[in-house]
């Protein structure tokens, strides 16, 4: 089965190239996607964990988020 193609458009000359990905490019693309996805999930988890921690602290203090914002503002 042929590899997918990529399109390159030269904005100066107007030339359009349709190029089949090499096996190495397919592997690299998959690796890059995996790295990005791992990083994205890690960042999202960190943000979610922080929100949970913030809520727990506010609960301990007996404050609402709006009240905390006033205090910190």
């Amino acid at each position: 089965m042929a590899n997918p193609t990529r399109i390159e458009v030269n904005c100066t000359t107007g030339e359009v190239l349709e190029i089949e990905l090499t096996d190495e490019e397919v592997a690299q693309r998959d690796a890059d996607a995996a790295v990005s996805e791992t990083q994205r999930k890690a960042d999202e988890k960190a943000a979610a964990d922080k929100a949970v921690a913030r809520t727990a602290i506010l609960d301990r203090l007996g404050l609402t988020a709006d009240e905390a914002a006033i205090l910190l503002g």
Partner: protein
Amino acid sequence: MPSTYTLIKGETLASSAASYTFTAIPSTFTDLVVRISGRDNTGGGSINNYAALRINSITSNYSETYLYGSGTSPSTGRFNAMSDWLFGGGWLSSAGGTSNTFSNTEIYIPNYAGSTNKVASNFTVQENNTSGSNQVGVEALLLGNTAAITSLLITPSGASFVTGSSFYLYGIKNS
């Protein structure tokens, strides 16, 4: 308000493509605008895929602050130390999204030919014709690299952009 808004290059895909790249971008404009109407071929029921934008083949020092809104709740956060900019919260898949609907993105890149770090804004809205999961993604994008932008590589999170996806690059001149 820009005094010019010029189409540099663009097209609608007649067949699927693994990526779309604008190369040899002229340095004669002040700002760039990338407009994409896209859909990828990811299966598995996910409708909230992302796409990625890579500048000059640079693979480090990308970061972004995002606001995503779904049909039920918004979320905010940051992505750090990325290998490209992700613009998410608005990309459809063939399996999970409504048939033949696309997401629409505008990325604005000011001072792209200057010698400062590169910033951009992204606004993406998903067209999906459902009642419960309308997606919007807004992002402030930063690349810690001062090289003038000469190429833009756009890739989907799935294997390819489907036929009918479109990619347009505009140049803006302020004088």
